[in-house]
């Protein structure tokens, strides 16, 4: 193989390796070596391995960024399907969201569900520290309508407001918050499972 051909090959594989970060080291090695073998076979089909032959083989494979994306996205979605760790699920959904509207919507649902769950739990935890102000409040707005607001207790008592749950916010907030986080994760995992079943590979 000419040195120029070697250089092109290593540069491509280096960019691919870089973009595969996040996968297990053994998987990265396996992917890179398989593609190296493919490129050498393809470029060497005519005899001598030339820079032009290697370049043609690399063009047929597509950009290393896109190729790595195919591997990483599927791997992350596979992890999200079996994972119960919110961060792992978020990571996979974030990547899915960059590929399709469906992914974006599921990611939004995941963020909103977890945010609401976290606020409920926080409210319950902060109630003993802010007994007069933390809780679920019914407050009149300037237009005269009543609105329900979950308050963490920072600041003063809302004027004209009435607290709805009192100390019940502690057990209710903890249970509702945890349920929301668990159900959001389960629902998003279910969406990922349906997506992976219906799409052999993420479409671009």
């Amino acid at each position, binding site marked *: 193989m000419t040195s120029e051909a070697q250089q092109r090959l290593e540069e491509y594989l280096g960019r691919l390796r870089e973009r595969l970060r996040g996968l297990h080291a053994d998987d990265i090695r*396996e*992917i890179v*070596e*398989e*593609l*190296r*073998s*493919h490129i*050498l*076979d*393809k470029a*060497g089909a005519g005899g001598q391995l030339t820079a032009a032959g290697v370049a043609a083989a690399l063009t*047929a*494979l*597509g950009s290393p960024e*896109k*190729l790595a994306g*195919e*591997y990483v996205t*599927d*791997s992350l979605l*596979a992890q999200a399907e079996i994972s119960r760790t919110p961060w792992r699920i978020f990571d996979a959904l974030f990547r899915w969201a960059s590929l399709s509207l469906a992914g974006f919507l599921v990611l939004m649902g995941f963020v909103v569900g977890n945010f609401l769950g976290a606020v409920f739990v926080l409210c319950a935890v902060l109630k003993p520290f802010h007994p007069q102000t933390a809780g679920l409040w019914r407050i009149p707005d300037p237009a005269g309508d009543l609105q329900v607001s979950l308050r963490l207790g920072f600041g003063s008592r809302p004027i004209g407001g009435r607290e709805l749950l009192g100390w019940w916010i502690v057990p209710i907030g903890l249970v509702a918050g945890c349920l929301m986080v668990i159900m959001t994760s389960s629902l998003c995992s279910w969406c990922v499972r349906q997506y992976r079943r219906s799409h*052999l*590979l993420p*479409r671009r």
Partner: protein
Amino acid sequence: MIPSGRESAEKWEVQLRKGCLELAILAVLWGGTLYGLEILRRLESDSDLIVSEGTVYPLLSRLKALGLVKSEWVESDAGHPRKYYALTSAGRERARSMAAIWTRFSSSMGKLLAPLGKEK
């Protein structure tokens, strides 16, 4: 802008071909072990599928993760090792059931579409 009938049909054809790729790979491996480039060449020569190389390798990796194929590195005369794929028993089972679904589906679609080919 509403895409023309021809454009829509072409897009639909791309999705259809893409959806058939898993079955096509399992079918190609039915006859024995092959490495990536051999699988690609078989797909090109024996099917009407237009296969992107950048799609087949991640798909093989996925099929392996699902336990439908297994792989083994084998030294070659070319001077570098090649990764050979073979169907697992789960892969053979999947290929059989997918082929049965395909046959049933294409036969019923064939009946449905038969009048379209006849001139009035």
